[in-house]
């Protein structure tokens, strides 16, 4: 702080601090605390708010455990509360989306960072950026058109005689995953690209000079170096996927349900803002825990992320 005053003088320092405080306090911390507070209060008719029924309770959270459904996984049958199931599936498919994004992005990021000539790079970025700038709704919508039963994909495959009857592509979580991968793969490409391009090409050449085949160069040199970038991309893709509402709403099938949709149901269908708050908080908490756990396992720090 004294460093700042020395550099910018007291009035400017104060202004800077106030602006930052407004952001962090009024727009981030207090809203989340309010959210947390609301989540511990029951949903009551307007007349009862502030009345004797308005007490702190964890009931909203416990609603996740209502309504058990039968689940069969790896041949084991068991019961799981329906929202827990939804939540688990949301996490699971978010992880799958993250993995697919990584597998798609890594070769491309490597190509851009180490093979493509620097002169073509801006063009490459431009081409990749175009879909990013087109709104998420429209991107999901584009896939909805493509994947429709009578859409271009079925049409093309039928006419190429690869399939003989139109196929419904949006089944289970297929549509959601396709949409999420398409929408968020760029969030994997850029950090991984950044990480790889910060790798000194001499290291790759040194490894090659020492006799390493290409796969070992990737395994021993490029991947370890790109780890923070990969972690950063993975966290972004995972969080964005798990928190996405649009894509599951547009590309969901009759058997896919995303946890954000459940939250939205509480909010907008059941009008129970308190339970919605509890669910929203659960989503935030669990995703954060999950990400921290994974980051711990892979030994990456938050500061490596979002570079």
């Amino acid at each position, binding site marked *: 702080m004294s460093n700042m005053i020395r550099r910018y003088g007291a009035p400017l320092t104060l202004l800077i601090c106030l602006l930052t405080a407004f952001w962090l306090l009024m727009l981030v911390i207090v809203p989340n605390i309010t959210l947390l507070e609301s989540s511990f209060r029951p949903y009551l008719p307007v007349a009862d708010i502030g009345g004797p029924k308005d007490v702190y309770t964890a009931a909203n959270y416990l609603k996740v455990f209502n309504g058990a459904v039968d689940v069969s996984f790896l041949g084991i049958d068991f019961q799981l509360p329906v929202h827990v199931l939804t939540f688990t599936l949301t996490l699971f498919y978010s992880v799958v989306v993250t993995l697919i994004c990584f597998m798609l992005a890594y070769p491309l990021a490597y190509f851009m960072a180490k093979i493509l000539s620097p002169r073509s790079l801006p063009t490459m970025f431009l081409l990749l950026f175009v879909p990013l700038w087109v709104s998420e709704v429209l991107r999901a919508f584009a896939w909805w058109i493509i994947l429709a039963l009578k859409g271009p994909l079925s049409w093309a495959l039928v006419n190429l005689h690869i399939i003989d009857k139109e196929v419904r592509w949006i089944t289970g979580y297929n549509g959601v995953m396709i949409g999420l991968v398409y929408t968020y793969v760029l969030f994997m490409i850029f950090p991984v690209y950044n990480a790889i391009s910060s790798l000194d090409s001499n290291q790759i*050449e*040194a490894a090659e*000079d*020492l*006799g*390493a*085949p290409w796969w070992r160069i990737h395994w021993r040199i490029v991947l370890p170096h790109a780890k923070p970038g990969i972690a950063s991309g993975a966290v972004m893709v995972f969080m964005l996927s798990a928190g996405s509402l649009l894509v599951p709403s547009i590309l969901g099938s009759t058997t896919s349900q995303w946890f954000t949709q459940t939250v939205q149901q509480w909010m907008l269908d059941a009008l129970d803002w308190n339970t919605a708050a509890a669910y929203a908080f659960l989503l935030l908490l669990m995703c954060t825990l999950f990400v921290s756990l994974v980051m711990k396992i892979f030994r990456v720090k938050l500061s490596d992320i979002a570079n």
Partner: protein
Amino acid sequence: MSAGIDLKNVCCDFGNFRAVDNANISIKPGEFFSFLGPSGCGKTTILRMISGFIEPTSGSIQIGGKDMKGQRPNQRPTALIFQNLALFPLMSIWENISFGLEVRGVDKATRRAKAEALLEMVDLPGAADKMVSQLSGGQKQRVAIARALAVEPAVMLLDEPLSALDLKLRQHMRAELRAIQKRTGVTFIYITHDQGEALAMSDRVGVMSQGRIQQVANPRDIYNNPVNGFVASFVGENNIFAGSVSTAADGMAGFDTALGPFRARLGEQAKGSNLKLYVRPEHTILSETAAAENSVPVTVSEVSFEGAFIAVHGKTTSGQTIVAELRNDGSATVPEIGTARFAHFNAAHAAILPDSTVGA
């Protein structure tokens, strides 16, 4: 375990820019050979062609008598040490050193033993389990050498390996590198733009400029008998006089300049019109009386104390500055600024040379 290298008419183009132009060199097995030249003259390009990262546009490269065309870097008996060393920062020291063995499928115990032996050899025992970031510059240097030696190359290629170190350490590492080369007997090809390094370490030096090799010779010949002005100026200081040859006989020539006639050795390649006379400051003498030949009256304009020697600058009547270096051992008297002196030199110490072997 050591091999010779032959470059025959090697050229390398990047687009329509010729980075290396018709290089012909034969490096002997076990030799310590340096390429010396200013930045951008094509040194790294030559090294990368030898190691296989770049294919020559034309010409052939042989290592140990075998044509290397089409051989990938990992198939050549060379090991490259990069300018920035390119140690793997995420591996420990011993993993770095044994990486070349790891990719050859050598088992861990053997690798570890070999790494320790090599660390012993480069005088870094006990560093095996450290990380790269824990080492100092000179220690990293040694690890890089150990890593390159681990794959038992016939030729070591070193691209300005000392340029990142500070002066004292650089001088220390020179001796060490030279010693390792002697110990292992491997052919070393060394790149530098530091004339001191090239002269002090090498068996032979190839001086390059703008993609062309200007002179290949042992250090003494490079310094004492440069073939052209580029080599003379790049390697050491000079007083330079423009003029033209008047008479020539027995390798000596008369040379007419604006300051009067001089006499000096006539360089082998000194043909045509663009000739100059070069004489080194340490061969330039200041005295109170004129000498018989090669003598110019000057006024002392600056005296600069440089430690082991004292540089005295004299201005001629035409305004040219002539520098004489005196030893700081009490043997010479240092003139005051403003006094008149005669700068002169022995004709055997001066040479008449063309600017450069090629065009500019």
